[in-house]
């Protein structure tokens, strides 16, 4: 195997993607099944001059990366269920103060301590609505290690483009499974670097004054411009304001900058979709089993396809609606009680033709599980 071909865990693929994207500050707290991310970065980051710190908890971890992002670094933290719960207030802060950062949640079974060493996709809605207040968030996932690598790079790119936190929702199976990964050459995947302000030293810089294209150029905190950052509603100077016009304008901006770009943020993959009458919609490790079923049934003449979602939030409603327009049945394959199912039902024209194929016992949903559920949906019994 050449140097850039590796046989790694998904958590290591995420680490490789983050380093490729230019990660240079990581803060975290150990938790299964995400710990390998922190372990790998504790040795890799200092080798390239980056900083790794193990904080006293997940709250401190997300706060530390936000501080480091402000000073001009690409930052990340990684955790699992309970730790992700602790990070919610910090996530809201990063949304409000518009600070780019990447938060990895390698999902395990919940609620509470739940099922630490087993798989689940139970945190999809938490990523969307876990922090309080009206807001928008970007959350991405992938189903194999090559894609975990690429989507991690993408997460950093989107975080910089939209000045926002991006959540990576992996799961225990992906995190721990070993698979081949080919690291692309530098430059092969384009990187989005921080948009720095062109305002000169000594001239007033407004940290929250958007350019014409809506983007907000940044100035490294502690550097040439002095400004204020707060989690309170704030004006273009970053100063707290409860003025109804300011509050309304900022909240609308925070939501619009993501939702007006739903299609641009949407990442998805299509398998055998052209003439599919039955469509699986799936993501993360459950999409592997769904694809297996599609590849089994296709040679047997069944018009079935898979729409694999990589962007979960903002939910790509328009794309799902369009792709499912001619389907007789849409089957959402996921390992929870139907968190994406509800989004799909809302998106499509005929919600009563949308079904759930799920498994929630900490075991990866298998192709056999899916085929059995499909038979039930078709009225054939198992």
């Amino acid at each position, binding site marked *: 195997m050449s140097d850039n071909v590796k046989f790694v865990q998904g958590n290591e693929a995420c680490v490789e993607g983050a380093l490729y994207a230019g990660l240079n*500050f990581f*803060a975290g707290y150990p938790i299964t099944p995400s710990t390998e991310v922190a372990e790998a970065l504790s*040795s890799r980051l*200092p*080798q390239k*001059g980056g*900083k790794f*710190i193990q*904080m*006293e*908890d997940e*709250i*401190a*971890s997300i*706060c*530390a*990366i*936000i*501080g*480091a*992002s*402000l*000073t*001009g*670094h690409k*930052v990340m933290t990684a955790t699992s269920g309970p730790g992700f719960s602790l990070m919610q*207030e*910090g996530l809201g*802060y990063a949304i409000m103060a518009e600070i780019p950062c990447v938060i990895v949640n390698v999902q395990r079974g919940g609620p509470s301590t739940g099922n630490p060493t087993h798989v689940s996709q139970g945190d999809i809605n938490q990523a969307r609505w876990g922090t309080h207040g009206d807001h928008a968030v970007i959350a991405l996932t992938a189903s194999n290690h090559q894609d975990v690598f690429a989507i991690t790079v993408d997460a950093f790119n989107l975080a910089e483009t939209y000045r926002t936190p991006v959540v990576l929702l992996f799961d225990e199976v992906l995190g721990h499974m070993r698979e081949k990964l080919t690291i692309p050459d530098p430059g092969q995947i384009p990187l989005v670097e921080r948009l720095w302000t062109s305002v000169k030293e000594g001239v007033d810089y407004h940290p929250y004054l958007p350019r014409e294209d809506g983007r907000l150029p940044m100035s*490294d*905190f*502690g550097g*040439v411009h*002095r*400004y*204020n*950052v*707060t*989690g*309170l509603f704030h004006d273009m100077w970053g*100063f*707290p304001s409860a003025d109804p016009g300011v509050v309304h304008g900022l909240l609308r901006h925070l939501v619009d900058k993501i939702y007006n770009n739903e299609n641009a943020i949407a990442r998805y993959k299509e398998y055998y979709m052209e003439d599919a009458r039955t469509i699986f919609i799936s993501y993360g490790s459950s999409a592997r089993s769904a694809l297996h079923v599609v590849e089994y049934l296709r040679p047997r003449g069944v018009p079935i396809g898979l729409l694999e979602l990589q962007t979960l939030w903002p939910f790509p409603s328009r794309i799902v609606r369009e792709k499912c327009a001619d389907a007789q049945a849409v089957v959402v394959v996921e390992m929870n009680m139907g968190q994406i199912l509800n989004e799909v039902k809302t998106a499509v024209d005929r919600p009563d033709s949308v079904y759930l194929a799920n498994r929630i016992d900490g075991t990866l949903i298998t192709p056999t599980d899916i085929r059995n559920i499909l038979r039930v949906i078709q009225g054939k019994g198992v």
Partner: protein
Amino acid sequence: MAVRDYLRERFFPHMWCPGCGHGTILGALLRAVESLGLKKSEMVMVSGIGCSSRISGYVDFHTLHTLHGRALAFATGVKLSRPEVKLMVPMGDGDALAIGGNHFIHAARRNIDMTAIVMNNRIYGMTGGQYSPLTGYGALATTAPYRNIDHGFDVVTLASAAGATFVARTTAYHVQQAKDILQKAIAHKGFSVVEILSQCPTYFGRKNRMGSAVDMLRWFKENTTKIGSKAKAENPDLIERGIFVEKQLPEYCSEYDKVLERAQSGGS
């Protein structure tokens, strides 16, 4: 540079009540910064949430106003990623030692170079007078109508035990001492903790019948004494003021440079 030049005047009038001790502490802090000849652009202030934390809005430094209790965690990210800045973290007693207590002891243990200022008014001012971990046994608060049965922390002992390499205490009455101590704390390389007793006439004072702000300041004068004074020997209830700990230990960011060296030379 005049003290006034360190202020963001467009941000005034400030939000503190008449007689609040927090403004006096701001004054002492700015005089300390001025005496050290520090430039506005070298200074970073990170604060949490509370009346005390609003101090960051009023200074013309690089300012980061964060979450209740989490200022030291944000500050750790700022300092480790940009070690050349001078960092100060003003906090309320609730902010620093209730919700932020864990971050407080761990920042002290790491000996990361920053100055933590605990503006101790023994009450939650911003939320209207509930008891804090420093209210003390027997005091009244809006959530302790039958008197508080919680015992308070001793900030000095706690910070020293946690590993802070500079630990001091003073009050809003002793403004000259506050300025001198802050000056030393800012110049100190490592984690420094300065507890400054501050008066909240609006809640702690009113609830506990301490009188006006002036009466509360007089209380600081009459109930505190210099470390190791004769008065203390005669009256052990007096609260000591001064520098309790001042020592040099390896600082976190400097130690991290060694980690970088070891990682890059392939050693361990």
